[in-house]
């Protein structure tokens, strides 16, 4: 299960809406081992594409170093789908490389409604999980 603060969900959704029709992507860092996403980092989509995303490699190095220095890890890795459902695509599955991360997918295909779903992707296997949105962490 992913437990996440409403304010962070709102940031992800706002980013996805702002970059539509291109895919938006980013991470939410949290203390290593805590499984608690706390620090929101929007990333550039180096592909600037409606069907693909890739973190800019130099920006990724900078952000991953920051996390290392703060003893954090990427608790959430999110991206948007802009014309299809919020379910991992074949490429999402084959490139998933953070076994501890919650992979969040947002779909912006409907301008009124947002789909916000979370998955574990380990060794090519996708498992959807419950998302619990809270006002604040206890």
């Amino acid at each position, binding site marked *: 299960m992913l437990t996440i603060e409403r304010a962070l969900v709102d940031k992800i959704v706002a980013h996805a809406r702002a970059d539509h029709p291109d895919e938006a*992507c980013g*991470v939410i860092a949290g203390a290593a081992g805590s499984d608690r996403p706390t620090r929101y980092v929007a*990333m550039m989509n180096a*592909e600037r594409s409606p*069907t*693909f*995303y*890739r*973190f800019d*490699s*130099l920006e*990724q*190095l900078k952000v*991953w170093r920051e996390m290392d220095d703060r003893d954090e*890890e990427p608790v959430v*890795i999110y*991206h948007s789908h802009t014309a299809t459902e919020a379910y*991992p*695509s*074949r*490429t*999402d*599955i084959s*490139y*998933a*490389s*953070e*076994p*501890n991360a919650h992979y969040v997918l947002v779909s912006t295909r409907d301008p009124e409604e947002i789909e916000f779903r979370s998955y574990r992707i380990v060794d090519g296997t996708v498992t959807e999980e419950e998302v619990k949105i809270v006002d604040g962490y206890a």
Partner: protein
Amino acid sequence: MAIEVRIPTILRTLTDGAKSVEGKGGSLDELFADLDVRHPGLRARLVDDKGLRKFVNVYLNDEDVRFLSGLETEVSDGDNVTILPAVAGG
């Protein structure tokens, strides 16, 4: 002195959990071959028959080696190499 190589979480099964390992070589290609002696299987996760794998980022100090000379990039003692899986998808 040696070259320090930082290993991402997903590859630490090949380094007994170590976050960084040391190796030697005059180029990135030689360095990866050297690492593979002590950490068998590591090279194959980084390189295929066409060169550096497309969804692996390798940095020499602060530079993406794709903007240098890829696997032919020269390395020397005291350098830091960082490996990160690209975060990408569709």
